[in-house]
């Protein structure tokens, strides 16, 4: 049975698309047939992060309107044969998404895929609502910062009231993914700690992604950061995917690295 996972946050710029790309790719690399759906109609980004922007012909809205079929619209990833991308439309807006259309497309995807990762737009309006409405699980991406935490809290409230599962009296499985975490700044009291965020949101922690140069580099190169297995962010995303699949993996990158004497002298990074 296919699982629909929504990656959402409320606040913009916290790393939803980076996370969708990383988790989708991670699931595909572990042998699951996966499709990542870009719900951010009008502000299409996923194709850039995945490095397939030059191969977009049709998009999600075309598919909903029946202008194209599934085979024409899905873009096959070049790195994994299990991975597909459903790009958003760049020329339309969120009103082009209809609940019936989204449901029909997701039902069709369910027949062919193990995991459907929905990359939600920011906000709590139509696009974000439709991205979460049909979900079985939710990854709530949060930065260790008060406004992001408050918006995530709001999204968690919507997940437990305005989703199909909630309307049927079931629960969406919620996961907290803390991104852009900088242990040094936490030690200096400039950033909320993992414990602070967990205390406010009180949902299980899926992973902590450290603030890393590798994320920006990967985005600009169009390679999901999880492919960069030498980077701390890439490894942290791999751990998060393992946990999403039910494995018990210890959390890493929570403590500030102790700098050696030489590093301290020369400020090496």
């Amino acid at each position, binding site marked *: 049975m296919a699982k629909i996972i929504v990656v959402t946050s409320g606040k913009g710029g916290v790393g939803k698309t980076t996370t969708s790309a990383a988790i989708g790719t991670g699931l595909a690399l572990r042998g699951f047939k996966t499709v990542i759906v870009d719900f951010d109609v009008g502000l299409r980004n996923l194709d850039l992060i995945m490095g397939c922007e030059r191969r977009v012909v049709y998009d999600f809205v075309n598919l909903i309107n029946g202008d194209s079929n599934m085979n024409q619209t899905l873009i096959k990833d070049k790195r994994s044969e299990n991975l597909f991308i459903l790009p958003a439309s760049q020329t339309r807006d969120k009103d082009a998404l209809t609940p019936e259309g989204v449901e029909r497309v997701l039902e069709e995807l369910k027949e062919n895929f193990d995991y459907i990762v929905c990359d939600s737009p920011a906000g709590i309006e139509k696009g974000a609502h439709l991205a979460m409405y049909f979900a079985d699980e939710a990854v709530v991406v949060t930065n260790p910062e008060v406004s992001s935490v*408050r918006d995530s*809290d*709001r999204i*968690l*409230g*919507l997940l*437990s*009231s305005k989703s199909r599962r909630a309307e049927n009296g079931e629960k969406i499985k919620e996961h907290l993914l803390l991104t852009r975490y900088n242990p040094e700044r936490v030690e200096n009291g400039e950033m909320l700690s993992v414990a602070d965020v967990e*205390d*406010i949101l*009180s949902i299980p922690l899926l992973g902590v992604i450290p603030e890393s140069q590798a994320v920006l580099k990967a985005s600009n190169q169009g390679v999901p950061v999880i492919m960069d297995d030498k980077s701390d962010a890439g490894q942290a995303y791999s751990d998060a995917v393992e946990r999403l699949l039910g494995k018990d993996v210890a959390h890493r990158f929570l403590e500030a690295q102790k700098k050696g004497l030489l590093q301290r002298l020369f400020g090496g990074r």
Partner: protein
Amino acid sequence: MTADTTLDLLDNDPVFHLKGGMLTMTLVELIRLAPEQFARQLAEKVEQAPNFFVDTPVVIALDKLSEPLSDMTLRHLLSICRDHGLQPVALRGGEDFRALAGNADMVLLPPGRQREKPIEVAAEPAPKPAPKAEPAPAPAPAAPAPAPAGSGKIITEPVRGGQQIYARGGDLIVLAPVSAGAELLADGHIHVYGPLRGRALAGVTGDRQARIFCQSLEAELVSIAGQYKVAEDLRKQQWKAPVQISLEGDRLKITGL
């Protein structure tokens, strides 16, 4: 001429506005036809909370009723309602009830969706066992019974920012954190067995005896019967401590637990 113009101006001034409004109504949902039991059970409810039923407009919901309803029986039921202070204003149900509603001078509303929640009537003045719809003999009114288990609302999931929960006619008990931006309202007491970071308003219909209890006071605002304090004042004492809040005179009193 000038007088005429003024008159014209007044003539064109709108006399009314058409507006859409949402009203909360009490539904009397009939499950089966038994006028005598209906009268007795209604009398029991009214005895438990006399004020609640004074001139209360109600809608008689017939959606759940499978037996045929005659004009006579309906009129009988309506008069029982009126005898107990209820003011039936409309019937609710499918088109089959159209003629019936017309004969009884009632408006017919379309059948409802599955959203309604049963109202638990708060016992007043002395607490009695929770009202149940079974035709059991009425409990002896003199016996001091334990507090009603079930008049009120119990929430086990976290209450998130943007959510609002109202326990009508009873207490609100939350067994989870209440986030900043969430709002709790109750006609009775409010208990929060987790950090209270949102707003909590107890005794919203004016009960000055209502109290607020919480494990960790981190609220944006607390209020009892309209008297309130905001976080800025709350921070000065017992912040993040387990407390109870009560109304003394016109001031909120916060004491540690």
